[in-house]
């Protein structure tokens, strides 16, 4: 059996990882030199964020998550996604690879200032959580007619 290098089941480890992620969010990734923990600090689950003048689209790539266990909240322009993935593993069996993350995650994303916290929609399809947040009218580019 391969040694357990991820060890996501350790609560202390998770706390360190969370701290590191929060630091990354404050100072930008790469602020800290790579430590041994960077093996697992893989920004899990990964996210993508895109913008159009009308809306902000956020994608969380989290396969095998029960959408009912996701806790999504928005406070001003800070979007928080909490969730947990339960990977069924039988310790009596011989694992050759154990790369899939298991356990709780918490992501906090700072969105553009003009998002409308009342207009948020979320869908979970094929393992991708897609959140659409509308932006306020005032921030959309407007055509100004010259008189």
């Amino acid at each position, binding site marked *: 059996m391969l040694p357990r290098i991820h060890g996501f089941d350790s609560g202390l480890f998770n706390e360190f990882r969370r701290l590191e992620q929060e630091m990354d969010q404050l100072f930008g990734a790469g602020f800290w030199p790579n430590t041994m923990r960077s093996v697992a600090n893989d920004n899990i689950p990964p996210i993508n964020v895109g913008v159009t003048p009308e809306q902000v689209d956020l994608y969380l790539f989290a396969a095998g998550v029960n959408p009912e266990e996701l806790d999504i909240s928005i406070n001003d322009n800070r979007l928080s996604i909490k969730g947990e993935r339960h990977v069924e593993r039988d310790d009596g069996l011989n694992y050759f690879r154990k790369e899939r993350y298991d356990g709780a995650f918490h992501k906090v994303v700072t969105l553009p200032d003009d998002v409308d916290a009342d207009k948020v929609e979320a869908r979970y399809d094929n393992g991708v959580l*897609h959140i659409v947040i509308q932006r306020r009218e005032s921030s959309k580019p407007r055509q100004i007619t010259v008189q």
Partner: protein
Amino acid sequence: MSTSKEITKQDLQPQQRRELPQRSIRPNVDILEDETGITLRADLPGVTKQGLDIQVDNETLSIDGKAEIDTPEAMQALYADVCATRYQRSFSLSSELDGDKAEANLKDGVLSLRIPKREQYQPRKIEIRNG
């Protein structure tokens, strides 16, 4: 002949060029073995049944999945952990595994693939008769 024609035609499609087909993600997997076979689970978020291609060829198992992510036109990326929409990974299969009998299941972006061992490698219980 017709196949080679098709390939050239596809290569020229501008859409495929924009998708940068050479970039792909190596999906994370769990692989476990029990007495009767091997089970592989892979994280392929965004991949649908139609976009998934699994092949067993010359004792090589290859997984090729295309994620379908619904993005608005004119969207500008603000932040991206994921920079490709294709997952690719292959494994060599040992000869006791019967790739022809592999069964795959895809749910919520998680692929579960079960490959049984060939019959002669399956555990056999030997019954003891009363003397």
